[in-house]
Every structure is written in structure tokens, then in C-alpha cells.
């Protein structure tokens, strides 16, 4: 059976191109993709995950506010009963060119399972997700 994932661009971010490409790529890779699109608040991710019984939430942030927008998402998932749901995040997560290791650590500390730098191929995330979900 197809695994369901929730995909979206968080916060006040309206970058739609990558979102459409990711939807295309994950669908092609055999996932059931619930794409809540751009400009999505944390609540929309959580509600969509509950409604569709999703196994992972994939958050994109391309505009630099990721640090503010993603804070507390893990805790809210826990409160909503989405215990241990996989949380991935990727994109231009912070304002300016910063050391990637420190950025990654900051988002891991927030409770994200995987953190991707700009320019990551969709295939990388697809392979990681298959591994983390134990498919193939």
C-alpha cells in the first residue's frame, strides 16, 4: 500500500515551483502525496497529517524565515497525537550564507529527523524517506 506524506511550504513563503516539482517527484516515486501548497501555517501541516493518517511531513522553506516558522512544530505534533511522525525540512532555511553544520544542528534540535541544504535533489529525500519508512 502506498505511504502517505504531507508536503507544503511553511509560513509566509510563496515559492511554488519547487513545491510542484517535489509533488511530481514523490508521486512518481510511489508515494500518496497530500500537497497543502505554499503559505501554509504549522496547523495546516498537522491537520492534513491527522486527516490522511500520514507517516511523514515534508516542510519546505525557501525564503529565510524557516527558523521562526518551524519552531515548535515537533511539540505541536506531539500534542496533536502525531507521536514520532517523521519531520523533514529543506530549502534556504536561514537568512544569509551560514555554516551548514550549525544550521542542520539547529533544526535537528527543533526535532526534525532530516534537514536538507539548498540544491538537494528530490531523489536524495526520496531515498532517505524510503529508508526511514522501511520500504524497499
Amino acid at each position, binding site marked *: 500500500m502506498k505511504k502517505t506524506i504531507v508536503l507544503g511550504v511553511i509560513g*509566509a513563503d*510563496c515559492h511554488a515551483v519547487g513545491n510542484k516539482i517535489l509533488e511530481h517527484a514523490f508521486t512518481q516515486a510511489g508515494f500518496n502525496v497530500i500537497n497543502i501548497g505554499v*503559505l501554509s501555517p504549522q496547523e495546516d501541516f498537522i491537520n492534513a497529517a491527522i486527516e490522511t493518517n500520514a507517516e511523514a511531513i515534508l516542510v519546505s522553506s525557501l525564503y529565510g*524565515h524557516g527558523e521562526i516558522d518551524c519552531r515548535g512544530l515537533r511539540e505541536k505534533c506531539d500534542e496533536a497525537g502525531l507521536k514520532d511522525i517523521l519531520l523533514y525540512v529543506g530549502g534556504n532555511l536561514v*537568512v*544569509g550564507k551560514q555554516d551548514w553544520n550549525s544550521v542542520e544542528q539547529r533544526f535537528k534540535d527543533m526535532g526534525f529527523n532530516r534537514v536538507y*541544504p539548498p540544491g538537494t535533489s528530490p531523489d536524495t529525500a526520496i531515498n532517505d524517506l524510503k529508508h526511514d519508512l522501511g520500504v524497499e
Partner: protein
Amino acid sequence: MELKNKKLSRDEFLKIREEVLNQWPTGRDVDLEEAAQYLKSVPDYKNFCVKLKKAKDEGITLAQPRAGVALVDAHIELLKYLQNEGGADLLPSTIDSYTRQNRYSECEVGIEESKKAGRSMLNGFPAVNYGVKECRRVYESLELPLQARHGTPDSRLLSEIIHASGWTSNEGGGISYNIPYAKSVSVEKSLTDWQYCDRLVGIYEEMGIHINREPFGPLTGTLVPPSMSNAVAIIEGLLAAEQGVKNLTLGYGQCGNLIQDVAAIRALVEQAEEYFKEYGYDIELTTVFHQWMGGFPADESKAFGVICTGSAAAALAGATKVIVKTPHEAVGIPTKEANAAGIKATKQTLNLLRGQRLPLSKELKDEIELIKAETKCIIDEVLKLGKGDIAVGTVKAFEAGVLDIPFAPSRYNAGKMLPARDNNGAVRYLEFGNVPMNKEIRDYNRKLLEERAKYEGRDVSFQMVVDDIFAVGRGVLIGRPEK
């Protein structure tokens, strides 16, 4: 109030204004008469309209960066650096994304967190939260014309504040700052709100103050066929002109094929002037060419290649100004040094090509004619849907998919049209959706894409589109299949 393409009366404007200035506390500090006095003190060299007109007359292309951070002093320092070290000709203040969604409380959070963190936690300057006094401090600290650049569907309060602060240009429009920047703002709403922004400029014009307006040309910045972005630019130009705007800069985002890029700018000027004349608007028209708006290579040297190729196209097209990218484009918001580096590389390219134009050839002439014919098909249908009213027609055209912007987030956009590159890298229509084109144009677009498909040994398909989107980031213009 029903949307119509008709100049707002002073009373209508003032009635809305009362509400607008109450949207956030800083609105109360805007006084139209006092602002007009302030704007009259703006010297020529700091006025956008004057500088653009001079460049147009001299045949020079000006360079303008994007830049904005959360805190006022840091923002001033950044812009001063781009002015003094980068050698920018025109300055921006890029507005942060919370402001663009009118979420001013979140801006407050961002400002406070930025103070604590000692670095900007916002991706731009939250002008509304700061209000007139601080925005004037920005303007007064600089020696160049200043423009707000953002992506705000409802920019009414922002427009009031920035113009009252001596910022003599505002980017945006009811289509170009909605469809690519919002998910659920109706076209009717954003057109109405931008009529207000344009009317504000018109009222200043009536008081003898010259303010420039610039519809956002590149839209989603991703494989937008020139005829679609030119149609939107001309429509937004007509809408602005009706509200009394006199100084307009119409824009276009680099597609990557030099002939198409030059043709797009020339077609835009020629066709916009024809429409302005037809409708009786007296407009001082200039153009802006946006360097590549799609994915960038992460390598900084390669990024310079992309930046300079765009600068060369802008110069050869004869655009009045060029919007500059930076070598940090692939990784997000640039440092001030990287931003200045982008300006310097751009200006060097512009200076070397100063006065040089792509001469008219059969290929260039044909491309100009094609873009104009396609654009006319779209605008004709918009006017037909609106029964002659281009504002009403625009709303209906988005409903019908007659205006259709590829890869746009808005749910008011049909998203049925699909673009792809032909074998020379020019952007063509792969799927027309409901974009109305005559048979000759449809067949010609198809023929060009079939040529590419044949060359690549595959069918015309969505995969071409995906490949094209990633191509420049990978170092090439056309997304060919791997061998």
C-alpha cells in the same frame, strides 16, 4: 464597491484611506499634505523618475540590487555599502515576507528576535512596522533614488508609508503581486487594492510630485513565455495609467535565449506605447530587465556567468535598468559583499556594452512580431471578456485560464498552461490550456517543440519542463536528457 477600470474619485479614495491608515498604528502618522511638502524637497538626483528619464535619453542601462534586513541601522548600512562600494545606480528596500502578507505582529517578533540574535531573522525590511519617521531616516541616509520592492497583494498601507517617506518608486501590481505571491487572494481584491496604490501616486502627480511605478515583470520567474508576461505588464500599465500614474517602468525576466530576450523588451515597449496611445494615456515609459530569476548554480564563479549573461542581454536589449542577482543566489539571501560583487560584475558588463544594441535581423524581427501577435491574442480576449473593461476582463480571464501564469501558487490561477524551451532555448507554449492563440501561432509553437523533441530523441512531455527548470542550476540553459 464593484471593480471597474475607472479612476477613483478623491472621495472614494479618501474613504478607503481612512480604513487603510487604521490597519496598523504607524498608519496614523501619514499626512498627505505634509508628505507632499516632504516629497517636494526630494532633489532630482534622488528622484526615480528623473534618473530613469536621464538614463533612457542617454541610452544607458542602470543597475539596481535587491536588499533588505530587519533592523533600521543595519538596513541603512547595507544600502550605503551597495551605494558606495557596489556602485549601484538605484537603491531598493526589499520588504520582508510577513509584511507582504500584512502580518505585522509577526514582523514585530522578527524585529525583536533580530535584535536578540544580532542578525536579521527577517528576509527584508518591515517598513510598515517602522512607519514614516524611520523610513524617512533610511531615505535621508542615502544619495540615490529609493524604491520599495516586495510582493504584497494588499500594499496600500505600505505604499502610503513609503511614498510619504520620500521613496519615489513602488514595485508591484494587482496581478504581478498576487498570482505569484499569494494562495487565496482573489484577483478582484488585489486589483482593487492596487488601484488604490496607483491612485495614491496619481494624486501625488496631481500635486506636481513625480513617482515611478513598476509592475513586476517576471511573475513566477520560471519559464514564463514573453507574451504572457508582456500581456500582464501592459494590462497593469493600463490599470495604473487610468489611476493617474504618469511614470511607468515595465518589466521582463530573462528567459535565456538572447534573441527572444531582446525581442521581448522591444515588443513590450512598442506594444505598450501603442496601447497607451490608443487609450489616450500620456506615459513616460521605461523598461526593467531582470537577470535570471530561476535556479542558480551554487558555485560563485558560475553564478557570475549567469549574472553577466543577463547583464549583456539587458544592455543589448537597451533596457533602462537591470535588476541584479548575486553570487550567493543559490544559497539564499546574500551578504552585503556578495551583493556588491553582483552589482560590480553587472556594471562592468553594462559599461563594456554601453551604447551597443543587438542589430535588427530577420530572426529578431520575426521574434518581435511573434511576441506581439501572441500578446495581442491574449489582451484582445481579456478586453472581450470584460466587455471593454480591462479590470473586469482580467478577473474573468484568470477564471477562464486566458491569463495563466505557469507554476503560480494562487488558486485563482488555472495552471493549465505549460511552457518549455525550444531547441534554441527560447520559451514556448507546450500546453496552451485556455490561453487563446490563433491556429498559426499554436502550430508554430508546437513545431518548435517537436524540433527539440526530435533532436533529443524523446516525446514532447512534462519531463522536458522539469528538466528545463533545473537546467540553469546545473550549468546549461536547456534541460536535455542525459546521454
